Every structure is written in C-alpha cells, then in structure tokens.
C-alpha cells in the first residue's frame, strides 16, 4: 500500500506481479497433475462400483444360461437323479409373495410417507421417521424370526401369507422414505394453488400433491419390490418352500431365492446347475422391475416449458 503523491493511476510493483505470475505458472502444472490424478481415481471408483454387477451377471450367464429353457419356467422340480425339470412353482411363488407383500407394504408405506411429508415438523413424524430408518436397517433374518413367532407358530404351519407379511414389513420403510422424499419435491406453489382454490388440506394432499409425486412414488415402490424380490432370510421360517405346485396363501409356498438356497447347498450337480439358472432368472426379474421403474418415471405432463 503506497500512498505517496497522487499518481494518475495506482502504481503497481511489476516485480511482485512477475513473481506472482511465475508462482501461478508453477502451481498450474501441479494443479493440472492433481486434477488428472483425482479424475483418474474417480474413473476407477466409478468402474469398480459397477464391477460386481458385471462380474455377477457374467458368471451367472456362464453357469446358468445353459439350463434355461422354456421347461425351466413351466416345469416342476424333478427328484434327485433325474435330469431336467424347472422352477415353475418357485417363479409363481415369488410372484405371489411379491403380490402379498405389495398389498401390505405399499398402502402403509405410501400413507406413512404422505404423513411424514405433510407433518414434517411434528414430534410424532420425527419419531416415526427415526423408527422407520431403524426398521430399514433391521437384519432380514430378524424379520423372518419375528414373522415366525407371530404368524407361523400361533397358526401351527408355514404359509405364503406369513412370508408375504414378512416381506411387506420390509417394504414399508423403503416405500415410506421414497414417498416422503418425492412428496417433498412437490413445489409449495402447487400446494398453495390448490388451497387457494378452496381445497381442504387432505384433498389437496390426495389430489394435487400425491398426483404430482406419483411417478416418483411408483418408481420407489418398484425399487422396493425389486429389493425384496431377492430376500431369502425372511422366507426361511415363513414361506418355507414347497416342492409342489401351490399358490394357496395358507400353505407353504416356494420362492426363487429359497429354491436357489436349497439347491445350492445340496450335493447334486444337477441341482447346482438349476440354482445358477434360478439366480439368473431372479436377476432378470429384478432388472425388468427396475426397467419398468425407470419407464414409469417419465410422466405424461412432466417437463415442458415453464
């Protein structure tokens, strides 16, 4: 800071300027190197993140693809020693279980999510949100034991209903949180618009808010379904598995993950092959659900100019 006689413009020390220029030139090389390094690290991390999936799919395809045929989807398992047979009952059983789980998990989860989003500050909402997170982190085997204790033991037998309820209970926190997040994204202005037109609060929530958030909620629901489609532990003590064709809700039911588990721990090569194929089909099922979820996100009136 030189405050000598008033020059026409402030004097700058060219020496300092040159030094600064030199210094930035030095750091520029270093900054570029660090930048390249960091970018490289991130590329590697991004690739590693999807590597497990690629490995799994590749391995499953190699081991299981040969056993997949139409028979696999339609036929029943064959007794040990006989070649062939399929997992028709397990695939159907998984769909039944997902149906029961959705019938329980979706309405409760969406309702709870709507409540959490609309009453975000209330004490009850805060506790429900916390407990829902805890439930989300609950090991699935615990859920299975719980369902066994309360649904299987009193009735005296394993059943599809018990399995579906166990899976549904696992869905609830997943659906609750995604629903809440989606509803929070609905702009306040839309809510205000409906209220200013004379809509009551609950009506505003059900029509405008829920409608606007619907694509996101559907996506969240499907992701939750995909998540629980592969759950094995909750089914071990509840749905139990079934060698035969059964879709009855009050009977033990077969499910893909259970069948894979049972076949994989068996000592027979033929069953091992079927287990690989089952795993491939299960992954395919999850993939299809995820694709539907992505498709559902595209809303009819979304986007457009504003």
């Amino acid at each position, binding site marked *: 800071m030189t405050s000598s006689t008033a020059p026409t413009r402030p004097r700058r020390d060219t020496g300092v300027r040159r030094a600064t220029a030199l210094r930035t030139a030095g750091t520029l090389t270093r900054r570029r190197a660090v930048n390249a390094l960091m970018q490289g690290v991130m590329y590697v991390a991004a690739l590693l993140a999807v590597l497990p999936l690629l490995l799994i799919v590749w391995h499953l395809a190699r081991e299981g693809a040969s056993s997949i045929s139409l028979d696999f989807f339609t036929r029943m398992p064959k007794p040990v020693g006989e070649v062939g047979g399929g997992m028709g009952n397990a695939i159907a059983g998984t769909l039944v279980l997902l149906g029961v789980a959705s019938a329980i998990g979706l309405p409760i989860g969406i309702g709870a999510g709507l409540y959490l989003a609309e009453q975000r500050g209330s004490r009850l909402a805060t506790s429900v949100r916390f407990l829902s997170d805890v439930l989300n982190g609950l090991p699935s085997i615990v859920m299975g034991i719980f369902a066994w204790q309360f649904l299987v033991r009193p009735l005296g037998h394993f059943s599809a209903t018990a399995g579906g309820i166990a899976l549904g209970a696992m869905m609830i926190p997943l659906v609750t949180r995604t629903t809440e997040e989606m509803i929070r994204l609905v*702009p306040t202005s839309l809510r*205000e*618009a409906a209220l200013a*037109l004379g*809509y009551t609060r609950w009506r505003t929530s059900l029509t405008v808010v829920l409608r606007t958030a619907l694509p996101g909620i559907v996506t969240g629901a499907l992701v939750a379904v995909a998540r629980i489609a592969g759950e094995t532990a909750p089914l071990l003590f509840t749905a139990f598995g079934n060698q035969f064709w059964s879709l009855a809700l009050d009977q033990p039911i077969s499910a893909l993950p259970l069948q894979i588990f049972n076949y994989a721990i068996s000592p027979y090569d033929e069953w091992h092959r079927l287990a690989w194929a089952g795993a491939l089909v299960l992954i395919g099922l999850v993939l299809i659900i995820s694709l539907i979820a992505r498709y559902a996100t595209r809303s*009819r*009136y979304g986007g*457009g*100019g504003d």
Partner: protein
Amino acid sequence: MTTPVPRPPSPVPPGTIEARTFSFYYGEKQALFDLDLSMPARSVTAFIGPSGCGKSTFLRGINRMNALIPGTRHSGTMLLDGEDLYAREMDVVQLRQRVGMVFQRWNAFPKSIYDNVAYGPRINGAAARTELDEIVESALRRAALWDEVKDRLTQSALGLSGGQQQRLCIARALANDPEVLLLDEPCSALDPIATLKIEELLYELKAELTIVIVTHNLQQAARVSDQTAFFYLGRLVEVDATERMFTSPREERTEAYITGRFG
C-alpha cells in the same frame, strides 16, 4: 360438497374488504402493525413498498393463506362484506372460494388446461359435464385466454408460455366465481407484453370484482390501480387515491420511495 350458504344482506357492495387494527405475527416476530385499510368493491387496490415490508403478508391475510404456516397469529379484524374473516364460524374453504388468489410464480397444475380451470368448480359440486364446460369456457374468456387455448384444452397446461400460464391461473381463480381477486406480484416474472395483457385484463375484471395487487413495479401500480397503499416495515405509511399518491404524496417517505430514492 358444500352448498353455498345465502349471505346476509350487507350495507356494502359484495367484495368490500376492511382491515381494522390488523396485526400479524410469525412466531415472536411481528410482521404487521395495527393496519387500518379499506379496499372498496369493484376497484383495484395496489400495495407497494420495499421487499419485506409486509405487503404480501397482508395480502395473504385476506384469504388466510398465512394461517397455514405454523406458529403464526393475528390480532385485530379483517372483514369481508362486514363478516369477520377470522371468525370461528367462517369456513376457510368457502372463504377461499370467495377470495381467489394468483401467485407470483404461475403454478398451473401438471394437468390439462381444461382440468386446471375445472379444478375449483369440481369441488363445488359442478359435476355435470355441460355445466363444467360452460364454466371453463367463460372463465377462460374472462381471462382473455380462450382464443389462444380453445383448440388445445386437453393438452398439458405446462406447455403454455409463462404469460399464458399466469392468465390460466387467473382463469382458474375466476372459475370459482370469487368476489375478490388477490394477486401477489403477478407480473414480476413476465415480459412486458405478457404484463400488458394481464394489466388490460385487470382493468376489465374490476368491473365485476374487487382486485388487490401487490407489485414492485410502481408504474404498474400507477397504471392499474385506483387506490394505492404504501407499506414500510410492517406499517401502512400512506393510502390514497392512486393519482394523488403519485402526484402529491403527503408523507415524505412515500415520496422518497416513489421517486426512487430508496427501496
């Protein structure tokens, strides 16, 4: 579905709003201080003042939109046609049908143009398709939008331009057949041509209803309003006929604001 309750005959023409020592608090913070203001029917009242002066708060007090925010309270009275807006027996749903509101940022629903306008009447029990068609057409005509959208009523409202969406929001409010129309900076995000259209629209609409408009655009206030109220720091500094206000304001602060010396 609520059936309209016949209103008691009042000495004033329908749509008169009157605030008496009206104060408003966000929690501990007082936002409005003892406002006395009367907004006559079939005229345009403009609220001007720097940001945060309470004009929007006051506007939202007229259809009780502020009461949605937890922790708020008010004192004093706000009368619509002589009835206390905040009285226990005043149904807020009916109130908001009588007092329509248009917001700064147009907020058309992600639905078709038709459904946007039909939104309010549907809840009032206008279920018959022909009746609804009539309401929608007349509301769109009153909002000077009908000619532009009559061939695309089933298309998404979000495909309209900003100015069109804002007029759609006005049409949506008009479909409820309100006595009062509140506008919270309706043109602040619009280009001059769209703004002009809205201003012309307001000029026509004031023949039928009470209009209250918050604006940051002083020229706009001068152009569209019959009465102007100047707010500053939660207080009503001056209220007068717009012409007088912009030519010979009584208060020094009003003059300073109008001539652009602050705010």
